[in-house]
C-alpha cells in the first residue's frame, strides 16, 4: 500500500556509494575521538593549507586546535585530567628532545614540537635523570680527582642527591611560574600576539634542561678548560632555545623590558649550570689543598701549646 511505503524507513546506503552517485554533495564525517591519534601522521593536505602549516610547522594544526578545546574537560580531581598531560607517544618525546637540542632560528620550539599538547612526562623524567646524573657524575669525578691521595676517604655522599633534586625541581617549576606570572602581567598592559600557558612554559624549560645530562656526564673529565667549554656550549644551545621561544612573547613590549626579560632568562640558566658545576664537582687543581689546610692547623696548634 502507498501509505505503508511512505512510512517505510528509507535507507540511504553508506557514504561511499552516495558519494560515487553524487560527487558534488558535501559530506560531514564525525570522527570518534578515540581514533584521532592515528590521524596525527595523516595524509598530505592541499597545498594552500601546507603553506600555513609550514609557518606553524605543523601538519594538522587545525585538528590539534580543535582538540585542544576538547582535551581538558575532566575536573581536576579525577585521574583522567592528569592523564591528558601524559598523552604523548615515544616518537613525540624524541621529537621534542631533538627540537630542544637543535635550535633553528625562526622556528619556535613551542609551536613546532609542543603544538598545544604540553606534556609533563618529559620535564619530570628529564629533571629526575639530570638529578641523578649530576649527583653520580659529581661523586665519580671527585673520586677520580682524589684517587692517589692517602688522606682522602671516599664517601658516596648520598645527601647530595636530595640537594640536587631540590635545586633542579625548584628551578624547573618556580622559574616557569615566575615567568608565566610576569608574562601574564605584561599581557594585561600590552597586547601580545603570542601567549603561552603555564604548562607550555614548564614543558619548554623541562626539555631545555636535556642538554645538561650529557654535559654533566662529560664534566667528569677533570680539566677546567674542558668543563668551561662544555658550560658555554650547553648554555649556548639551551639558552638560544629559551630566547627564541620567549622572544615572540615579549616582542611587542617596551624594548628595554623585552631585552631585560630575555637576558634574565639566560642569566638564570647560566646561574644554574655554573652553580651545579661549582657545588657538585671539585676543582681539578685542589688535590694539594688538604696538606695546605693541615699545615696552618699544625702551626696554630704549636702556637697554642707554646
Amino acid at each position, binding site marked *: 500500500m502507498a501509505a505503508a511505503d511512505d512510512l517505510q524507513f528509507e535507507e540511504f546506503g553508506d557514504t561511499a556509494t552516495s558519494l560515487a552517485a553524487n560527487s558534488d554533495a558535501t559530506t560531514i564525517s564525525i570522527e570518534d575521538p578515540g581514533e584521532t591519534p592515528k590521524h596525527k601522521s595523516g595524509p598530505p593536505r592541499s597545498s594552500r593549507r601546507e603553506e600555513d602549516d609550514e609557518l606553524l610547522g605543523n601538519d594538522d594544526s587545525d585538528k590539534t586546535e580543535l582538540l585542544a578545546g576538547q582535551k581538558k574537560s575532566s575536573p581536576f580531581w579525577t585521574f583522567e585530567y592528569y592523564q591528558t598531560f*601524559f598523552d604523548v607517544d*615515544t616518537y613525540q*618525546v624524541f621529537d621534542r628532545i631533538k627540537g630542544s637540542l637543535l635550535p633553528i632560528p625562526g622556528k619556535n620550539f613551542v609551536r613546532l614540537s609542543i603544538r598545544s599538547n604540553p606534556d609533563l*612526562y618529559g620535564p619530570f623524567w628529564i629533571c*629526575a*635523570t639530570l638529578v641523578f646524573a649530576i649527583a653520580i657524575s659529581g661523586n665519580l669525578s671527585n673520586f677520580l680527582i682524589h684517587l692517589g691521595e692517602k688522606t682522602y676517604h671516599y664517601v658516596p655522599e648520598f645527601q647530595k642527591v636530595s640537594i640536587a633534586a631540590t635545586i633542579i625541581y625548584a628551578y624547573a617549576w618556580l622559574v616557569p611560574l615566575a615567568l608565566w606570572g610576569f608574562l601574564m602581567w605584561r599581557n594585561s598592559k600590552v597586547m601580545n600576539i603570542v601567549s603561552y600557558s603555564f604548562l607550555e612554559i614548564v614543558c619548554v624549560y623541562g626539555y631545555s634542561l636535556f642538554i645538561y645530562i650529557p654535559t654533566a656526564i662529560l664534566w667528569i673529565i677533570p680539566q677546567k678548560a674542558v668543563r668551561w667549554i662544555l658550560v658555554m656550549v650547553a648554555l649556548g644551545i639551551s639558552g638560544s632555545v629559551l630566547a627564541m621561544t620567549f622572544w615572540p612573547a615579549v616582542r611587542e613590549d617596551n624594548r628595554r623590558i623585552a631585552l631585560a626579560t630575555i637576558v634574565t632568562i639566560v642569566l638564570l640558566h647560566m646561574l644554574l649550570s655554573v652553580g651545579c658545576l661549582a657545588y657538585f664537582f671539585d676543582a681539578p687543581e685542589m688535590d694539594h689543598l688538604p696538606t695546605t689546610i693541615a699545615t696552618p692547623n699544625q702551626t696554630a696548634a704549636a702556637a697554642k701549646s707554646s
Partner: protein
Amino acid sequence: MKSRIRERDSSTLNESVQNTIMRDLKAVGKKFMHVLYPRKSNTLLRDWDLWGPLILCVTLALMLQRSSLDGEEDGGPQFAEVFVIVWFGAVIITLNSKLLGGNISFFQSLCVLGYCILPLTVAMVICRLVLLTEPGPVNFMIRLFVVTLMFAWSVVASTAFLADSQPPNRKALAVYPVFLFYFVISWMILTFIP
C-alpha cells in the same frame, strides 16, 4: 549443612600457624622463582602480594647500612633513605605507567617492581662477601661485573612482566623509568663501602 558452611568459613582460621606461614612463604618463593627465570607468565600479576618486596627491601636496606662509628664521614644512604627510594620510586613508576595509559593495577605494578629487586639483593650479598677480601682493582672489577649483570637481569625481568600492559607506542616511555630506578639502586650497591 550449616556446620559444613561454618567449617568452610573457618577453614583457614582453624589451621595451625605453621600452615598459614608456610602457605604464604611458598607463594613468595614461587614468585622468586618466576623472577629468577623470567618467562611471560601471569603469576606475578594475578596473585600479587607485597610480602616479597618488603622482605627484599628490608634486607637490602639493612645490608646497605654501615656501622656508624665514623660519624661525619658516613656519606652512605641510611636505612630510611633506601626504604624511601625503593618504595617512593616504585610508586612514582607505577603512577607514570598508569598515567601513560597502561592497564595494570597499582599494586600489581608495585609487586612486580618489588620482586624484581631480587637479583640486585643477590648482587649485594655477593658484593659484601667479595668485600671481605682485601680491596683493590680486581675486587672492584668483580663487583662491577656482578652488579652490572644483576642490573641487566632486573631490568629484563621487570620488562618481561610490565611491557605487555602498555600501549605499543609508549613502551619505551614506560620502561625508561624502570631502567633509571634499578640503575640508582645498582649505584648504591656498587659504591657501598663497609
